[in-house]
């Protein structure tokens, strides 16, 4: 039964991957990336129970955390074009983002 759930989660990941590949805007891709990350968390949790090793839940927590940081980093980069301090900075500009 866990295998059916795993298959469902993997199908979800595949669909999210298609959206990440097709875009069309950067935000669609970031949305798909975020969804892919949360689905990986679920995948790891279910695999942990399928193989009877609940230690894997520590890993799921790391995935959730790193997914959040990755999404925020990509968002900030697509917004400002750099990670420096100046808030106005060289904002990537709306025309470039919605390409």
């Amino acid at each position, binding site marked *: 039964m*866990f*295998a059916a759930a*795993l*298959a469902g989660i*993997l199908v979800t*990941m*595949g669909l999210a*991957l298609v959206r*990440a*590949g097709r*875009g069309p805007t*950067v935000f669609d*891709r*970031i949305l798909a*990336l975020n969804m*892919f*990350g949360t689905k*990986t968390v679920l*995948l*790891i949790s279910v*695999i942990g129970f*399928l*193989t009877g*090793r609940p*230690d*894997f839940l*520590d*890993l799921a927590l*790391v*995935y959730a*955390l*790193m*997914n959040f*940081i*990755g999404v925020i*980093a*990509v968002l900030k*980069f*697509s917004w400002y*074009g*750099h*990670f*420096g301090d100046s808030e106005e900075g060289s904002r990537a500009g709306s025309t470039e983002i919605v*390409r």
Partner: protein
Amino acid sequence: MTTPLVSFEIELVTIMILTLLAATAIAVVRMRGLLEAVMLMGIYSFLGASWMLLLDAPDVAFTEAAVGAGVSTVLVLATLALTTTRAKARERTPVIPLLVVIITGGALAYGTIDMPPFGAADSPANTYPDPSYVERAEHDIHVPNVVTAVLGSYRGYDTLGETVVIFTAGIGVLVLLRGSRARPPASTDEEEGA
């Protein structure tokens, strides 16, 4: 649930994950925008880490998840901030590189024919580093995680070397980026000390 059933399910999941990995890799190669490619690399890291977990290597999966999906995304993006976010279009079709890749890949695939079956008990991976380490670790070092015991104690020199490598990487980045920074007229030290 019997063991063979679970291993069959895991094999199926592994195949699906590897398919997704291949699809992600192709998408990364075809992507012109580097920001999009970095995002797909994050996805690739997540998938790779899940696969390592299925191969029963939670410590490696842990590292891949922490470094590959999180910190390296941030660092690669920070690099893109200093360079450009668009890949240059190729001027001609890369025939020679394609040939080199095909020949190398073919040779490597040919080499795998001689390898013992995956997980075979008499394969060098399972016999050469004395398997008794796994049994001895429990007794020698009161540490349940054998990976930590082997890395820290039996192979302590190696781990010290790896730490020095990371140290060197940090120093290298400092020397390259901080050292070449164009000094503004006023000393930068005041701003950093604030």
